[in-house]
């Protein structure tokens, strides 16, 4: 007899195989506990009985697949949701960037764009926007479309406090126009960001960057895939370039750990030194 847990495991494996053969998306290297949680939540939201039911839907309907990719993505956080990172970036990275004539920045795994816009605001305030090229990528077309639209949840009072804590120099509302419960980011910011589809799990490096942001995106991957992605991030980073990870992510167990130096007092900003 198979118990319900074993049955669910079997159904999960069949679903993963179906997604891979039908769409080429490989979920086998996602962090298993996270994958299970997100899929179970997706089932509840879609009112589906089982992973098998989801499998049937996904196989026959490409839109259901995009819904699934959204469910698997990192859910959006507010603008400047991690103020300590942005203030450290201002204090430690910006002064170095000022000495560069041109700067290429890659935000890998931008999701629906909150962190991308926060970074763009920061670069604009620091007078670097004119010589920056900001590329933002994600695997999900749906999320990218959201990000590209520049429509975000209206910032709350907490968001405004975070912005100030992040060293914000103006008023956060200078950067968007209010539309009901939404904030529409000003075109000067939005139109200068290159949003492009890129799957960290399968696609190669596409340029060389002075700054790579990849924060809390690798949490979704298992150790072997995260290692491969780190290989790619390393290849994409210019020598002496900056790699910005999430507060609880590290390069310690990655293939190029020895090539990075952690900047003091910044949480997890690394500089490629070799």
């Amino acid at each position, binding site marked *: 007899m198979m118990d319900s847990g074993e049955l669910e495991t079997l159904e999960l494996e069949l679903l993963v195989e179906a997604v891979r053969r039908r769409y080429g998306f490989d979920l086998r290297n996602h962090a*298993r506990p996270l994958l299970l949680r997100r899929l179970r939540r997706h089932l509840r939201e879609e009112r589906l009985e089982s992973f098998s039911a989801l499998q049937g839907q996904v196989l026959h309907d490409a839109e259901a697949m995009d819904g699934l990719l959204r469910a698997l993505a990192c859910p959006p956080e507010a603008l400047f949701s991690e103020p300590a990172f942005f203030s450290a970036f201002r204090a430690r990275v910006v002064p170095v960037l000022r000495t560069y004539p041109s700067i290429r920045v890659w935000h890998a795994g931008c999701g629906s764009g909150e962190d991308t816009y926060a970074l763009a605001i920061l670069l604009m305030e620091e007078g670097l926007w004119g010589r920056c090229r900001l590329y933002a990528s994600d695997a999900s077309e749906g999320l990218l479309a959201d990000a590209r639209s520049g429509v975000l949840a209206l910032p709350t009072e907490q968001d405004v406090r975070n912005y100030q804590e992040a060293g914000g120099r103006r008023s956060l509302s200078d950067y968007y126009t209010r539309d009901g419960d939404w904030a529409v980011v000003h075109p000067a910011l939005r139109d200068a960001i290159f949003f492009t589809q890129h799957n960290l799990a399968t696609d190669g490096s596409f340029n060389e960057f002075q700054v790579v942001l990849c924060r809390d995106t690798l949490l979704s991957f298992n150790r072997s895939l995260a290692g491969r992605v780190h290989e790619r991030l390393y290849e994409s980073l210019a020598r002496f370039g900056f790699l910005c990870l999430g507060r609880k992510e590290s390069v310690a167990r990655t293939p190029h750990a020895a090539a990075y130096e952690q900047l003091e007092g910044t949480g997890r900003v690394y500089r490629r030194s070799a």
Partner: protein
Amino acid sequence: MSPLGLLVVGAPRGASAEVEALLASLSPRLSVPVLLALHRGPHDLLAMPLGRRCPLPVLEPDDKEELVGGRVYLAPAGYHLLVDRDSLCLSREPAEHGQRPAIDPLFESAADAYGPAAAGLLFGEHEDGWAGMSALRARGGHVAVVGEGQPVDGVERVPLSEVRNWLARWAHAPRMKVQP
């Protein structure tokens, strides 16, 4: 019965003094990893105070750290703590019951990854943790609520002073008979 492979502990913020007492009472020879989800705000420094009296090292892990027996892993502020088979895994999913870290995600992942080899201790009086505890129980894990009093919803209650003995019940595989 499978020998114990993991201990998960969940507690609301109000129970942090009891959690400190629990950690202090753990055996220094405990051979399994302990994972702890304690409700907390973004600026609480907990690992230090909680570790003061604990005979085992208490640390806030990075993502994908390997699990080592005899260590206490505290869920970092702003992240859910989950467990895979031999490593742990952090998540930035939305708060549950208004909490991140929350208890349910930890207990549910322990149920998936360890089932009957997991033991779970819950400190009471918060809605967060009950769903996780029933998931763990459904997978054959050993669960109890810490504190004096009547059993709750059919779940055993263990006084703080008895936790060590309660753990010892699961910590050792029954000795095999020696064949003559």
